[in-house]
């Protein structure tokens, strides 16, 4: 069988990643390969290929009898993701330019890739901004990967945290002022609250998944 067109392959990957990010495919749900292939007017091959790539990225897990399931961390797994995020962000603060005024100037520049996103994507883009200011490509990539893994949980968390946009504002404000101490406080608080919420977050996602299964 001929290998799928690289362009189609790229588009399918992008679409699958978007589905996962928006939480349309909830953690723990089976990936409906045939339905997705029909929806995107492609054969199942590129969908499966994109699935294997997402397995490599830690977003999906292969099913024993073929196909994929969206990776669903347990409570500790979700907390570990926030530990990793905090570790990276706090490390990134250490790499910021020594001069607070340079950080301030750079922080006020607009991001090209900041678009409308659901949940508290504002916090996610502020994290990316911090990584970029730290001038470390590796951090940008890892924070983006962590952001993808955490995306479905953010939506669930948003139903518990009424003030999550204010949290992002606090961090952005600290970044603009070039205050490392306030950045650290904002990041610690952000991650700590979500670690505490982990059982409720996973519970809500399980509820959503059951409701979605009923609809099908």
């Amino acid at each position: 069988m001929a290998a799928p067109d690289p362009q189609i392959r790229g588009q399918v990957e992008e679409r699958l990643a978007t589905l996962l990010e928006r939480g349309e495919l909830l953690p723990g749900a089976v990936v409906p390969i045939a339905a997705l292939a029909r929806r995107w007017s492609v054969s199942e091959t590129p969908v499966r290929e994109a699935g294997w790539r997402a397995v490599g990225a830690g977003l999906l897990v292969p099913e024993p009898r073929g196909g994929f399931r969206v990776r669903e961390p347990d409570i500790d797994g979700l907390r570990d993701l926030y530990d990793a995020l905090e570790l990276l962000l706090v490390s990134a603060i250490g790499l910021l330019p020594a001069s607070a005024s340079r950080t301030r100037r750079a922080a006020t520049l607009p991001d090209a890739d900041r678009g409308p996103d659901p949940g508290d994507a504002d916090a996610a883009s502020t994290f990316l901004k911090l990584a970029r200011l730290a001038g470390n490509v590796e951090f940008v990539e890892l924070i983006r990967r962590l952001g993808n893994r955490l995306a479905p949980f953010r939506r669930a968390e948003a139903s518990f945290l009424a003030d999550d946009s204010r949290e992002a504002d606090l961090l952005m404000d600290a970044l603009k002022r070039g205050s490392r101490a306030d950045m650290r406080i904002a990041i610690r608080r952000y991650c700590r609250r979500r670690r505490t919420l982990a059982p409720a977050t996973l519970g809500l996602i399980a509820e959503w998944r059951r409701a979605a299964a009923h609809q099908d």
Partner: protein
Amino acid sequence: MLSHDVAGSPGRDVLASLKGLSGKSIERVRRRRHITQADFARAVGLSVRWLREVEGGNPSSSLEHHLLCSQQLGIPLGQMLFPLLYLSRGMTYPLPLASLDTVELETRFVELIAERNSRAVRDFLGHDPRLSGMRS
């Protein structure tokens, strides 16, 4: 001579050696700035007598006071941290470092820790060279 044995034979008090190094450095910077002991003592909230103990590297002087004085004079923390690292490992601290600007070393130290942390997160997430295809 490139190095000077400040650690001495094993068993000698590491903190006492550190206080000796730190006291000299505090006195040197204070004098260079033409600040009197009385003025400096007032600025850091110590008595002149205690400041003399700090600058003299008296083993009974408090490490907290050394840190306080260093911070007030803008002496990089590395000037205490790096000798402490050597001394606690029973190693000889190469003295020329003491007169060097340790800011660069501190920066590299921070970068090393960041690098180590990013490696840990990469291992945790699972390495996938093809990942650049996902939402890059």
